[in-house]
């Protein structure tokens, strides 16, 4: 029972193949991680899956439907949501408003009803707010609800982004480096949160640099190098795969 399947996805920038012929699939409740050295094309792959970039080749299939290059707002309607490596929160809105924004699809009605503040609009807004407060509690941000999002710490913002994404009740959640820039405690919090979300039946696709975290929580790992998939499997087999070790060592040698 595959929920999200990636079939031969590829893209070139100015003649350079950033991602080439990558395929894998994700099942409900499963945590699949995409790893690879810097510049391996992980975020580019994410941007293609989530409709931010238009793939040059290949397909993205969500729940049996071809959703390749579909605009992100339509993907959201079909149950796919993502977070961003470089944090995309609504800075000048409150933490609560940020989370309510995640309820947009359930909350939004006709614009005239919103203008006139009709009972239907008020009821939907109340429901969204109640749900958002619940979610903030779940990610441990309930006490910051009325604060402006821009004033939060980095780790809190990461959790806020996850809360906002969870508000959509997604079937597939794409997390782009959710623990980047977080300290050990924050990383562990996010770690638990992800496991919890997966346990509730959400398919999770993860890009992460923190190798310990990846090995700990992933069911399945896809390894990219220079835009190509070089290995795939469970954490134990991937960590022993010679091609993977070579890729990482090569990268480290190059960096050193």
């Amino acid at each position, binding site marked *: 029972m595959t929920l999200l399947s990636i079939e031969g996805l590829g893209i070139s920038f100015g003649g350079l193949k950033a991602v080439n012929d990558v395929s894998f699939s994700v099942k409900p409740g499963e945590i699949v991680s995409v790893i690879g050295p810097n510049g391996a094309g992980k975020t580019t792959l994410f941007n293609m899956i989530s409709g931010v970039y238009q793939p040059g080749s290949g397909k993205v299939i969500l729940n049996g439907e071809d959703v390749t290059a579909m605009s*992100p*707002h339509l993907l*959201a309607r079909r149950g796919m949501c993502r977070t961003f490596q470089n944090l995309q929160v609504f800075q000048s809105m409150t933490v609560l408003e940020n989370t309510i924004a995640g309820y947009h699809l359930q909350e939004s*009605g006709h614009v005239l009803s919103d203008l006139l503040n009709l009972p239907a609009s008020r009821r939907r807004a109340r429901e969204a707010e109640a749900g958002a407060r619940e979610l903030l509690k779940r990610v441990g941000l309930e006490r910051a609800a009325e604060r402006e999002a821009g004033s939060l710490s980095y780790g809190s913002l990461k959790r806020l982004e996850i809360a906002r994404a969870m508000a959509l009740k997604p079937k597939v959640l794409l997390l782009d480096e959710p623990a980047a820039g977080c300290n050990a405690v924050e990383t562990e919090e996010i770690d638990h949160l992800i496991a919890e979300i997966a346990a509730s039946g959400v398919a999770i696709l993860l890009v992460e640099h923190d190798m310990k975290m990846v090995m700990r929580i992933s069911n399945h790992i896809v390894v990219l190098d220079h835009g190509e998939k070089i290995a795939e499997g469970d954490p134990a087999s991937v960590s022993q795969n010679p091609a993977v070790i070579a890729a990482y060592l090569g990268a480290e040698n190059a960096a050193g």
Partner: protein
Amino acid sequence: MTPKNATLLALAILIALSPIFFPSSFYYRVGALIFVNALAVTGIVILTGWAGQISLGHAGFAGIGAYACALAPVHLGLHPALAVLLGALISAVLAWLVGRPILRLKGYYLAVASLGMGILISMVLNNERDLTRGPDGIDVPELGLRALLKDAGLDLSNGQFWYFFCGIVLILGAWLALNLRDSATGRALRALHGSEVAAKTVGMDVARLKLQAFVISAVYASISGSLLALQNKFITPDVAGFMHSVEMVTMAVLGGVGSVAGAIFGAAVLTLLPQVLTVFAEYEQLVLGLVMVLVMIFLREGVVPSILRKIRGRGE
């Protein structure tokens, strides 16, 4: 009390009690002008402050609203009140047609396209003399509401009537805008202003939302133009001119482009200034330009939100 109700209450009290301090009946007229401008600027707050889009041609919509009141009663036999609605409808449709393809593109394209659209409207109003009588202007029929009120036993002077009538329309406009602000639509507008890509990932149809903001703000400008025409009983193509568009944006920027209270404050200051300082006319462009640049660099939120922040900061 919610901030929304506090703003509305303060506005209502201000409108009701200000006449006590008027040195002469002339100030009823100034007050009515402030309300008319503030209404248009409230539309700019929705478009620019919340949705983050900028129009440099909103006076074009005011022109449509104004000339609808001048022409529709004469040529179509419509009651002036219906002419206001007709103008608003035409403005909405035009905004929709122009905005639909353009709001998919980068921010400054709307600025350029709306600037062109505004100038085109003002050009038509100036050149189609057979219909609009050209640059000399045209008479506008009576709304007739004051006579009705008089029959009902409420005898207001012309100045008083328009002062309170425009004041009530402004409160209504502010109420609608503040409703919108905290609704799903308003939140989505402010969200896409913050991060378009994040707004999309939570399912917001960004192009459609911007279009809604553009259409709503066009209707505000149109009704503001209609009210101006009806109270002056006369209108010239200047109402649709580029400088009027610039005035609207400057008023919004000065008061605080994200705040309805700020919009009203900005409109009040920049409407009063030329009335109090007669030399102002000569320096108008200089001052408007300076205000836009200085506020954008030093006080990006505008005067009112900056003051509110100070007060709140001290309270905590």
